[in-house]
């Protein structure tokens, strides 16, 4: 199944918590620049899978290969530096840091102020650059999550319910941003969502997770 043409190869991933299986034999792949959706009922194992793919937790069995390299045991920070960025379902901002400082943390040390402003401008947060992250609205926090994810120039973005609890305007602008990142930067993404219309409009194919397995693949 492993092929250098695949950006991400997930092979036989299994995970249990206190002997209760959450994921079993999950296998799929993502091509460079591909837009893939992931849906499933609550408790189907979506967040566990996202946590394994981003390096937050290790699987009990199986492997994750990124760009031909085995990253199964690579921690989240190393995967980010390798080009796998993730966003959180519930953003966890740095309350005392300003928006610009939060982005600076994610950029390489050599990055200048121009690079920070360019990223903030792209996600529509330039006007809030000097505000503490703790004072941002939900929509702005989601934009900041995008800015953080884009700071590593990702080749794969794992987006966990990134459009939930947003106003219509925020959702439309972030959807447009995601399309642009996918089209212009060539970044692939794995979008986790409960919204079938959104998944169908953004993703070429959607993986359906049920009972800890990929039950089917196709439209949402």
């Amino acid at each position, binding site marked *: 199944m492993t092929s250098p043409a695949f950006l991400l190869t997930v092979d036989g991933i299994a995970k249990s918590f206190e002997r209760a299986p959450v994921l079993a034999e999950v296998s799929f792949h993502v091509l460079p620049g591909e837009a893939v959706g992931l849906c499933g009922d609550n408790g189907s194992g979506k967040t566990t899978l996202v946590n394994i793919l981003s390096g*937050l937790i290790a699987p009990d069995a199986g492997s994750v290969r990124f760009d031909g390299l085995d990253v199964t045991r690579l921690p*989240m*920070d190393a995967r*980010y530096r390798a080009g796998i960025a993730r966003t959180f379902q519930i953003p*966890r901002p740095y309350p005392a*840091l300003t928006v610009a400082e*939060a982005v*600076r*943390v994610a950029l390489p040390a050599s990055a200048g102020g121009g690079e920070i402003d360019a990223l903030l401008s792209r996600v529509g947060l330039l006007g809030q650059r000097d505000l503490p992250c703790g004072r941002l609205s939900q929509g702005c926090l989601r934009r900041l999550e995008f800015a953080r994810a884009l*700071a590593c120039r990702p080749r794969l973005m794992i987006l966990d319910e990134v459009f939930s609890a947003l106003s219509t305007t925020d959702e439309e602008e972030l959807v447009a941003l995601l399309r642009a990142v996918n089209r212009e930067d060539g970044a692939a993404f794995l979008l986790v969502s409960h919204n079938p219309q959104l998944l169908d409009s953004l993703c070429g194919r959607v993986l359906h997770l049920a009972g800890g397995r990929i039950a089917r693949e196709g439209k949402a």
Partner: protein
Amino acid sequence: MAAHLPIGKSTAAAAGILLLLPLGLHDPFLLDVLTTGFLLAAFAGSWDIVGGVAGQVSLCHALFFGIASYACAAMTTLLEWPAFLAAPAAVLLAGLGGFGVGALAAPLRGPFVAVLTLAIGEAAHELVLGNVFLAGAGGYAWGGEGGIPVRLPWWAESPRAAYYAALVFLAAATAVLLLVRRSRQGLVLRAVAGSEMTARASGIDVAKHKRRAFGIAALLAGTAGAAYAFHVGRATAADFSLELSFQAATFAAVGGRGTVVGPVAAAFCFHVLFQGLDVPPGTRILFYALALMLILRFFPGGVAGELLRLRERREAGR
């Protein structure tokens, strides 16, 4: 946060007062209280790097102060090293201790860091308190509660010279602490304090930076410990005490955790107040506990945080 504190004029005024004070103050006891106040303020500032900026509540900070003071004493008295070699070696040992504690604390979070460091600090305190390192036939004993004397490079220390040396030391230490806080390293530590998860998802090796926070803070605490040992002429078990660590954490909370300047100012003011009024240790510890409870409940940002809030409110009203 500290970068925007309204401290410019007040710092200049305080510096002017402290520079001129010894000219009109001839009581050696009061000069000594102020001198030790400067050294302990630098120590409290060093705690703020790990406990405030990096958000790792360490309760063994006195360990690094004590390692440096005991190393100075042992190296000058037992090994007969000159002070200019003993002091940097002692500071390096303290820094190594910091990296060691940091390595143990790095996988832990929140109260677990406090509990681990409390245990390490108390174990070290008991170790130096309960052991006599060298006992001679003449009846002398080095170690235990009395500690080890430091062989001083001068015959008689002038209280005024010591005062100015300690003041310059505090100014330099504060400048270094502020530089660390305002550097990229400081920014990363503030991010780790804010959300370890987001920091990790931003490519930050959180464990590595926690070790660094402990190491940097320990180097600076060790510098204060070495300076203190050369000032008082003896390293004692009190240099490792929980009270010293607790003081640093309390003063940081009162002054404003993570601001460096707030903890330094609070440590100096409270030390001078307590020593000047000869407040007994039991009362001091009671005060620390009460102050911590009240500050954390009503003014979590400390004095510096309140000053910022007042300034923001004033600016918003314009």
